């Protein structure tokens, strides 16, 4: 099951959704908003998404994970919009009969989400500039958060 939301992620509710008497293991991964990237301090993040394709890709990844591992339940939730420090941008909850599959599949899912799902993060730095994160591309110059280019 996959979901995009603009609301804070309810981790208790996700754990309830993946609970099963068939599962001996539940793994919950949360991607959370970290304050420092190198020496740069984050004030907040914004997430943007190509929603229709992101849902398709998340479903595709769940399907692939279910082919590779004996998964009972799988829920992935990605948050969009504005996030403060410490808030979760993504939750992946997996249950399986034994723990190896839960650990491995959750790990594969987050690694692969970060490579293929059309979602983008914008860093709002403490110095007042903002910058979209596009890994591997020549760094896009930071702009003042109000959009004015000096």
């Amino acid at each position, binding site marked *: 099951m996959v979901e995009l939301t603009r609301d804070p992620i309810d981790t208790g509710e996700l754990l309830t959704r993946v609970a099963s008497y068939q599962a001996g293991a539940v793994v919950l991964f949360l*991607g959370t908003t970290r304050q420092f990237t190198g020496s740069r301090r984050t004030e907040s993040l914004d*997430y*943007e*998404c*190509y929603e*229709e*394709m*992101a849902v*398709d890709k998340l479903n595709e990844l769940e399907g692939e994970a279910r082919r590779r591992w004996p998964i009972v339940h799988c829920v992935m939730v*990605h948050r969009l919009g504005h996030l403060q420090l410490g808030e979760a*941008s*993504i939750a992946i909850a997996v249950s399986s009969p034994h723990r190896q599959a839960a650990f491995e599949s959750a790990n594969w899912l*987050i690694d692969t*989400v*970060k*490579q*293929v*799902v*059309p*979602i*983008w*993060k*914008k860093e709002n730095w403490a110095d007042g500039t903002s910058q*979209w*994160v*596009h*890994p*591997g*591309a*020549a760094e*896009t110059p930071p*702009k003042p958060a109000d*959009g004015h280019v000096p």
Partner: protein
Amino acid sequence: MTVQVKMFAAAKDEIGQTVVAIELPEGATVAQLRQALIDRFPSLGPLLQRAMFAVDRCYADEAARLGPDDEIACIPPVSGG
């Protein structure tokens, strides 16, 4: 033909539009679209070189041919998760 290309993130901010109309020859490829976008928005060249393109919500390779009714998106390097 005219194709409509959805734009996101830094590309969208730089251009100031969520969708860009681009004039291309009939049967143009993703590679030709990429070049047309770079020609139109040279400041976005480096980012566009690293972007993927999606057609009807699937990543497309450079040789994929485009049609005027395709749902096309420019996908700069992603940073979700």
